[in-house]
């Protein structure tokens, strides 16, 4: 948060900057990326930020006090930790007082906020619901201007900006009044029109201008945020529209004046500042402490550490390491994603395999252009800006089928006269079919359609395919560099098995505007299949291997790499380029495929315990079939649970955490401290973990605590607008964040990152990157280091690593997890697996 005093005079540039900073940063739906919705407050420590955001903007940032108390009463919160944390933070002498405060004291939990103090004067003093007058038309204008393909009749003017377009529209449609007030009409075409001049009319006192604009814009933060994002990243729209927050605000101010002029007549109303009767608290005045927020903060910490404590103790209880690592049949790379956590466990149980977790773009950053595609999609974490382009060639079949239900004719007059009398009847059959027997339809978003499995990829550098700014394909050196980093970061530099798999992931769903949130976060929400296939192809390349050998990574000739795609919704897997395998490897691959399939079936069964409408007593195979159907079912708002329940990220060797049952709640990144003593590769890992996993975690957190303002609310009434966002009904503001249906089972706790290394090294590493450091320093993510030799724990607090002693001593041991799947949909405790 930027702390500043309201300037006595109005400086347009500064105010616009502030608005850009605080408005939500959510991309249009196709690029939906999980991110912290309170990003603007991230320069404050977590709890302070939550108090500040709540006080200023009225967000609900914690659970209800009753909810915490109920968790405690129901035994979901460890009483020992309750005691420990209160004493740690408040001192032993304050224990009694704070215990009472947490458990019994009545608090005023109202979310008083500073937003809207000025804007509501219109309602209270002028008896004019100005938002009602203005919003509907404003949203409609900006919606049809930005629209990416819903309207059949596009906005009729192509202009250099939103305001210019409106000016032209008004100038050329004199017979239909754009504004009702003649004065406003004149104002619109004035050459020197500015925010200042309009605010002079409306508000009339410069001291309040900024706050007024905040009130106004945050009354529809969704649309304002969208305009701000598009202004700063015009490329996020495939069909670009020049737009700016300035123009948008200007138009809104004009509409407000218009509404006032219409109700009272020009000159018959005073500017708002004349009617300020109560003290206006400036929006960004320092925030006063509220005791109830201290209570929330304590509860939150206790709630979180109740879970973390078990995990940390569990990590300490790792079995003794064998002196010689056993030889494995094959190795498999998975994405760090929490959804792969359980699949790896199942696979390890069935086969003699070593699995590795790493960010699912496999350290290859590029844009991907499918054959026939007119655009590129980014295949790497969103903050990166790749210089490479990879093209898909020689596909066997086009994946884009058409469906007349989405056609323009069906919304046209005569077209739909014909269609409704012919295809209408077909719709009935199709609908019935879809409801009783869901099948693939053109509306399905399927991860397998992202790339044709029979296609070839043009990934080798080629001189004559250059575009203006991108290089087509990678040179051998560039490939070797990326692959070296990849292998070293997970610690796989020797003992290669004959087959090594790269498993990317994607998701499938239908009827889901938030489909992009289900993809691979490390691939900008796209499917990770291209990256997996490329990683395999690069490592299979002789020239690359030669270069790697020079760098000290010797891959035996018999070793082959295979790319694959895991569909997390349907739990299916697809392997690429199997034909290049040698005869021996082909036989092995056949065996491994069986193992994968079995693991996926078991994984589906494990997941089904959270799908309340599936009978979990059935056999794994039957359940797997039902799970697959979820992806195809129109009526299923939760095709999968996506990242719900995520709470952990473990960066370390798999053998130090494979003994724990983590209930699909952990991001797992493989990392071998022994092969990276100075932490050179650790920085790269944490740099990705913080924004990607942290962003996901916090988006879930806040969608849980306030689904009206920090989440998208129930998705059931959502209406798609301009292909960029969803709103409730037809007059609503764009919704930000995750829908209610994504977070039903999520417990809002922050991410705990556990790194296996020496504290001194980790400290040095994180200090190298300021943005990453801020995540940990301000505790938006908890960081604990486990010393690999002594298994001692160190918690990162206020810039230092302090020893942490878990309260938990033993963990329940479980033999065979199968019984767990049939029991409940609740979060399970951490188990030691036999």
């Amino acid at each position, binding site marked *: 948060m930027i702390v500043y005093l309201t300037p006595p005079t109005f400086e347009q540039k500064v105010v616009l900057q502030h608005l850009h900073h605080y408005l939500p940063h959510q991309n249009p739906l196709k690029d939906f990326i999980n991110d912290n919705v309170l990003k603007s407050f991230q320069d404050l420590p977590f709890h302070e930020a939550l108090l500040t955001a709540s006080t200023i903007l009225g967000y609900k940032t914690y659970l209800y006090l009753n909810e915490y108390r109920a968790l405690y009463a129901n035994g979901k919160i460890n009483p020992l930790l309750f005691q420990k944390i209160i004493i740690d933070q408040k001192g032993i002498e304050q224990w009694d007082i704070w215990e009472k405060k947490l458990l019994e004291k009545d608090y005023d939990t109202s979310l008083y906020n500073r937003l809207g103090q000025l804007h509501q004067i219109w309602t209270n003093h002028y008896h004019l619901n100005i938002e009602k007058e203005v919003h509907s038309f404003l949203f409609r204008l900006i919606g049809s201007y930005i629209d990416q393909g819903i309207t059949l009749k596009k906005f009729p003017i192509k202009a250099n900006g939103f305001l210019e377009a409106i000016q032209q529209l008004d100038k050329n449609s004199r017979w239909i009044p754009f504004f009702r007030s003649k004065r406003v009409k004149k104002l619109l075409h004035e050459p020197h029109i500015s925010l200042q001049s309009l605010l002079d009319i409306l508000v009339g006192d410069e001291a309040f201008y900024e706050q007024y604009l905040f009130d106004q814009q945050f009354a529809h933060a969704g649309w304002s945020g969208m305009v701000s994002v598009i202004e700063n990243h015009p490329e996020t729209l495939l069909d670009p529209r020049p737009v700016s927050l300035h123009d948008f605000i200007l138009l809104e101010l004009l509409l407000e004046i218009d509404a006032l002029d219409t109700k009272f007549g020009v000159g018959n109303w005073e500017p708002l500042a004349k009617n300020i009767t109560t003290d206006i608290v400036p929006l960004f005045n320092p925030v006063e402490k509220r005791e109830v927020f201290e209570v929330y903060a304590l509860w939150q910490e206790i709630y979180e550490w109740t879970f973390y404590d078990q995990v940390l103790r569990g990590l300490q209880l790792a079995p003794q390491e064998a002196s010689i690592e056993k030889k494995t049949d094959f190795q498999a790379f998975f994405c760090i994603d929490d959804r792969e956590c359980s699949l790896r466990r199942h696979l390890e149980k069935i086969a003699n395999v070593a699995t590795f977790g790493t960010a699912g773009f496999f350290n290859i950053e590029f844009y991907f252009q499918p054959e026939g595609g007119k655009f590129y999609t980014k295949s790497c974490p969103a903050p990166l800006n790749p210089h490479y382009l990879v093209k898909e060639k020689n596909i066997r079949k086009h994946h884009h089928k058409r469906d007349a239900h989405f056609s323009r004719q069906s919304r046209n007059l005569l077209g739909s006269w014909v269609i409704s009398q012919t295809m209408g009847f077909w719709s009935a059959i199709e609908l019935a079919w879809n409801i009783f027997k869901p099948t693939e339809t053109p509306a399905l978003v399927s991860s397998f359609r992202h790339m044709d499995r029979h296609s070839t990829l043009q990934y080798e550098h080629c001189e004559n395919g250059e575009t203006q700014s991108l290089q087509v394909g990678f040179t051998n050196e560039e490939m070797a560099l990326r692959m070296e980093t990849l292998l070293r970061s997970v610690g796989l530099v020797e003992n290669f098995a004959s087959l090594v798999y790269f498993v990317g992931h994607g998701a499938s769903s239908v009827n889901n505007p938030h489909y992009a949130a289900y993809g691979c976060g490390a691939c900008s929400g796209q499917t990770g299949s291209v990256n997996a296939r490329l990683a395999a192809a690069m490592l299979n390349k002789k020239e690359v291997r030669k270069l790697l050998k020079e760098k000290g990574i010797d891959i035996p000739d018999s070793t082959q790499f295979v790319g694959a795609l895991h569909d997390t919704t349907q739990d299916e897997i697809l392997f690429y380029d199997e034909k290049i395998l040698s005869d021996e490897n082909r036989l092995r691959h056949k065996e491994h495929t069986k193992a994968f399939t079995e693991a996926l079936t078991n994984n589906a069964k494990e997941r089904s315990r959270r799908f309340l409408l599936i009978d979990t007593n059935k056999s794994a195979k039957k359940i797997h079939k039902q799970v697959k159907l979820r992806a195809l079912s129109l009526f299923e708002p939760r095709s999968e649970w996506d990242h719900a329940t995520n709470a952990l990220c473990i960066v370390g060797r798999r053998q130090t955490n494979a003994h724990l049952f983590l209930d699909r709640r952990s991001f797992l990144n493989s990392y071998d401290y022994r092969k990276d003593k100075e932490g050179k590769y650790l920085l790269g890992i944490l740099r990705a973990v913080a924004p990607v996993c942290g962003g996901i975690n916090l988006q879930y957190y806040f969608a849980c605590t306030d689904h009206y303002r920090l989440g998208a609310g129930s998705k059931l*009434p959502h209406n798609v607008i301009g292909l960029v966002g969803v709103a409730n009904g037809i007059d609503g503001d764009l919704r930000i964040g995750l829908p209610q249906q994504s977070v039903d089972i999520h417990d809002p706790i922050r991410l705990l990152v556990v790194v296996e290394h020496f504290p001194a090294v980790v400290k040095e590493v994180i200090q190298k990157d300021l943005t990453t450091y801020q995540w940990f320093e301000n505790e938006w993510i908890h960081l604990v280091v486990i010393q690999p030799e002594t298994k001692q724990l160190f918690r990162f607090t206020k810039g230092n690593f302090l020893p942490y002693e878990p309260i938990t001593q033993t963990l329940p041991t479980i033999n065979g997890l199968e019984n767990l799947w049939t029991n409940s949909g609740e979060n399970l405790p951490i188990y030691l697996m036999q």
Partner: protein
Amino acid sequence: MLSNYIILGLIFLPVVGFLLTLLCGENQEKRISQIAFYTIASHFFGALGFIVYWLVNGAMPINLKEYILYESHSYVFLIDFYWDGLSAVYCLVAAFISFLIVRYSRYYMHLEKGYKRFFSTILFFYFAYNFTVLSGNFETLFIGWEMIGISSFLLIAFYRERYLPVRNAVKVFSVYRIGDIGILLAMWGSHHLWHDNITFLKLHNTHLVASVLAEHPLTSWFIGSCLLVAAAAKSGQFPFSSWVPRAMEGPTPSSAIFYGSLSIHFGLFLLIRTMPFWEPQWVLRLMIGFVGFTTAIVGYFTAKAQPTIKTQIAYASVAQIGLMFVELSLGFTTLAVVHFVGNAFLRTYQLLVSPSVVSYLIREQFYHFRPYQTRQYFPLGKSIHYGLYLLALREFYLDTLMSKIIFNPFKKIGSRLNFLTYRNVFYYFVPTYLLGWLAWFFKAYLPASVIYLMPELAGAIALLMIMKAFSEREYPLLAWLMVVQGHFWIALAVMHNDLMDWQELLWYLSGVVVAGWVGWVCLLWLRKKEPKYFNLYRYYGHNYEYQRLGGLFFFCTLGLMGFPITTTFIGEDLVFSHVSEKQFVLAFFLSSCFVIGGIALIRIYARLFLGNHAKVYHENPLQSS
């Protein structure tokens, strides 16, 4: 005889389901959805079987014996059911679509707050729907019609803790109310036209109809126009179209069933049902054709310019219904029915898959992108082109038009009565009202001209009261009392008009008194509890804390507005039967009272109990969300 029982079964089966769901607990998802599913499934297969049986047996229209609900010397209220090809089609389409939707919603609504409320309302709607399409006379139809209005209100305001759904529910309810009055006036007119309760079956007697039409061309035209107003309001035709997209606030399947397929086609149903009556009148046919044609044009342009998928489907659908009106006016009934069925299926499906539009169209854009070009509608020149675009974007101002022409005048007149407050209203009311009764007792001594004007005078006062209730913002109690008083003045007006006897008066006022009194107590209670949040300037969402009170008050509201749960419902009809065919002015006053009164009442309920909760100790939505 067997047929009769089956038809009755088809009508009342959904009630059984509805009542059963009410017995379920809030979270018994499985039980609730099963009740709904099996009710509608058995209804669907029952209807299917019956239709086959009926077709095999010659497909003759069936009129079910009349059930007398009320009878006095001058007036009978009959419940009558009727089955013919049209009922069969409407019944089957609804059963099929609801069957699918219920199954769909079982999963879709999973874990949603209000799961039970959703299914109960759907079943209630389904009952109302069947009641309407199988009704055999106007009175019966009107009962179903009203129930549909209420279930619509409840489903639009499903997310009752938010501002927009509630505001739009009130808006849609208001338009429906106008439609209701069309039917009420049509009933009044036909009462005088036929001197009998005309059943739909009798309308097919061409000879009878022809003679009546020839005798009373003006009244016939009036009745037809009223029916057209009712049909246009319900089917979102010009100039009422703007409510349709605004109704899309509930969960998508409920929007699909209501505004995609079933509810929206009721206007068409009404027209086809009464076709033998208006078909010979070419003026009416022209009018229907005109309304349909205008809607088609308006809907066409509006749909094209809208940037949201549901608005677009709504206007596209409305435009198609416009075409059905045109087809009907040209006499192509079968075509219109086929068109209805196709449109219903198509729009249901389109609405259900509307969330898919993002991924589908983005993919389409990705592979088949053509850069943005601006093309003119016709080679008409920029000015017309841009103007037309702007008009289409603003839905031809239909939304503002509604409130400007219809509601604002009432509001303005009502606000002239601001000298009335909650405290002094009795001082004005009691003496004047007593005076009115005195005039009735001593009418023998009053000059004939006074007596002659008395009904209109009392009616005008009633309307004034109602207008005050409509415009009142400060005192909910005053608004409430004003509506109650309005009813009393209406009673007086009709008493002056002769013929209404004490028993009838009792029928009419007993409902008013009971509902009015209980509602008044509810309001007093709420005011005592929440003095700070008790006026009508904004929405207060007291349902959050006072759910039971809200439920009770809602019932009172329904009772007071003449919903078929109290005797006032029949009373309302009775009152009209005592307005003579020459008293157009009085009929206008009374019908306005019922329209505006209903809206005022629903607004009191909505503003106090629905919308954003005034207290902020929990997460609360913005007005725009």
